[in-house]
């Protein structure tokens, strides 16, 4: 660190504004960046992922598509192969089923199949998550599915600053990057929001390295490894338990691929207790991989059984109380932390 290094200026922004800012800055910087998807133009993105961009960059670069995800993701792939840097939006992760082939058999595999001779520098953005009664086909996270399939990076920001920094890094990455934003972290005016969805965001160029977790809160008693909206919940729980003498460390994964296993292990090595909180489905997903990241190194780090708080292998129910019962919310997180602590 040199003496002349000044702190970067910041302002408080919502996550959605921070994400849009990164896109706009990269579009200014590089004419080969463009954004493609349903209702990303005049509407500005159903979850405000592109607000104001059409006005600024015009319909040649902020492009509304037909409802043809397979065709327009493929279009992104081909354009990336030819050296452009497309950002392609699938409105909800839930819709991956109509276009997964382009994603995992093409976007994710062309570089490998070509022995590294063809690059696919594109970003695939998707909104995820529930909590507002959108039902079983519009509330899923599914990031575990993308992370399971090799060849694409997967990032899942929880804060405004990371939303900006990871978007910048994703656009500049020469690999395909899946960028999943939870609707609940965006700071949308029409959805209940955690105060953490508005926060300081660095001005100007801001990158966050893909593949590095962030210790969102240091603590010594128990490690909560989590991501996306659940980071906000976990921090709330940590703050509420602090006065009771339970010191929770919260690790925000930020990236699933690559997964920062060192950060997970380092934290658990310190606390000996692990709670994983994930809004995706429980089995065969993120929560087990986090546990295995520890046991791969040393199962004796776990002084007590790890707690996995996730959606218990049930489609997301519509009715508010049912949905809130299956989501990993404050009550379940707190119970898990207490169980891990034996109090």
């Amino acid at each position, binding site marked *: 660190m040199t003496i002349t290094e000044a702190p970067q200026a910041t302002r408080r922004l919502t996550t959605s504004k921070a994400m849009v800012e990164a896109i706009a800055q990269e579009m200014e910087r590089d004419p080969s960046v463009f954004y493609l998807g*349903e*209702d990303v*133009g*005049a*509407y500005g993105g*159903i979850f405000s992922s592109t607000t104001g961009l059409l006005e600024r960059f015009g319909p040649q670069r902020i492009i*509304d*598509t*037909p*409802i*043809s995800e*397979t065709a327009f993701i493929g279009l992104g792939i081909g354009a990336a192969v030819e050296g452009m840097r497309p950002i392609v939006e699938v409105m909800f992760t*839930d*819709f991956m*089923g*109509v276009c997964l082939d382009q994603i995992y058999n093409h976007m994710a595999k062309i570089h490998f199949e070509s022995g590294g001779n063809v690059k696919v520098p594109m970003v695939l953005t998707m909104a995820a998550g529930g*909590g*507002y*009664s*959108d*039902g*079983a*086909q*519009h509330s899923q996270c599914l990031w575990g599915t993308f992370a399971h399939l090799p060849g694409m990076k997967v990032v899942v920001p929880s804060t405004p600053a990371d939303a900006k920094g990871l978007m910048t890094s994703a656009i500049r990455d020469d690999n395909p990057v899946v960028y999943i934003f939870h609707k609940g972290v965006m700071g949308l*005016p*029409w*959805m*209940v929001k955690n105060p953490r969805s508005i926060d300081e965001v660095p001005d100007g160029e801001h990158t966050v390295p893909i593949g590095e977790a962030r210790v969102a809160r240091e603590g010594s008693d128990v490690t909560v490894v989590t991501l996306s909206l659940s980071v906000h919940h976990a921090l709330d729980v940590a703050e509420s338990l602090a006065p009771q003498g339970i010191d929770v460390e919260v690790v925000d994964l930020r990236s699933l691929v690559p997964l920062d296993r060192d950060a997970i292990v380092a934290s658990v090595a310190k606390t000996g207790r692990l709670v994983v909180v994930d809004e995706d489905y429980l089995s065969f997903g993120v929560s087990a991989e986090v546990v295995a990241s520890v046991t791969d190194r040393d199962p004796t780090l776990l002084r007590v059984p790890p707690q996995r708080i996730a959606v*218990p*292998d*049930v*489609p997301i*129910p*519509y*009715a*508010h*109380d*049912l*949905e*809130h*019962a*299956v989501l990993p919310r404050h009550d379940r997180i707190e119970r898990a932390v207490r169980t891990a602590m034996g109090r």
Partner: protein
Amino acid sequence: MTTEAASTSIPQQSRRGEVPEAAVRLGLYRTMVLSRTYEEAILREYHADKGPGFDIGKGLVPGEMHLSAGQEPVAAGVCAHLTTDDAVTATHRPHHLAVAHGVDLRKMTAEIFGRETGLGRGRGGHMHLFDPATHFSCSGIIAEGYPPALGQAFAFQRRGTDRIAVAVTGEGAANQGAFHESLNLAARWSLPVVFVVEDNDWGISVPRDAATAIGSNADRAAAYGIPGERVENDVEAVYDAARRAVARARAGDGPSLIEVHTLRMWGHFEGDAQGYRTDLADVAERDPIPRYEEVLRKAGVLDDEKVAQAKADASRRVEDAVEFARSSAIPDPADATAYVFTEGALR
């Protein structure tokens, strides 16, 4: 059309372009009024408790809400030819079709309210209405409601019945892969399906002309060797086109495609400010219900009394359903993981 949907039974008659008989016309009108009354009630209940501001997850009816005001001619005109033995598959915007097909209004409303008495015990919600009694279903994934309809038609065909399946999507959905695959397969296997496209000019904020280079999805029928027809948002035109398509399907001659150039009077979903919309000026004028009322008044089918009666009947039924929903039990969170699997197996 079932007795649930309208109190009059409708004789199946009339030739191409012929004016249907008075009882049919009255029935079509009453179905449209019932459907509109239903949507107005849901609109009211939906917004009743979203504040302060607008929180989509709050209130008696949380979540996304896609209402069908203006599209009643499609539902009334098509479902008039069906019985509840026939299947109807709808989209994220399903209420008008459910109402016209005779889905139990109480159970449907209870589902929209997320109650234990709902069609899906509150698990499904407004985009996931499944009613085995009327073979009604929907899907929130664009165009992906078509393929299961093929299977219902297949089962009906294999059992030697003349039952049919009606599958509905929006014009935006006609650019999805599932649309193409479904029409091709149904055509090749001569499945008894009537494919209906509701062209309301918009797929959320994207105008239909920005999404496809062709003027009418009915032209796509030729790509599968089946009849295709496009009609305007006039319930008798829909009724007429549907009559031919339904007859063809029942006769074992295979599927048809009907596109209705209809009207989305309200936002894509509730909360949609429609800033993108360039065609709002004459929406009230284009409302198909007063227009049809006018026609029927002129023809002597409707008068003040009959209009009032249709509205009162609709109101009574809708408010009864809303009251039923409102007073039904909320599902017990302890049961949140139930119904993933059924215990049953064939013995």
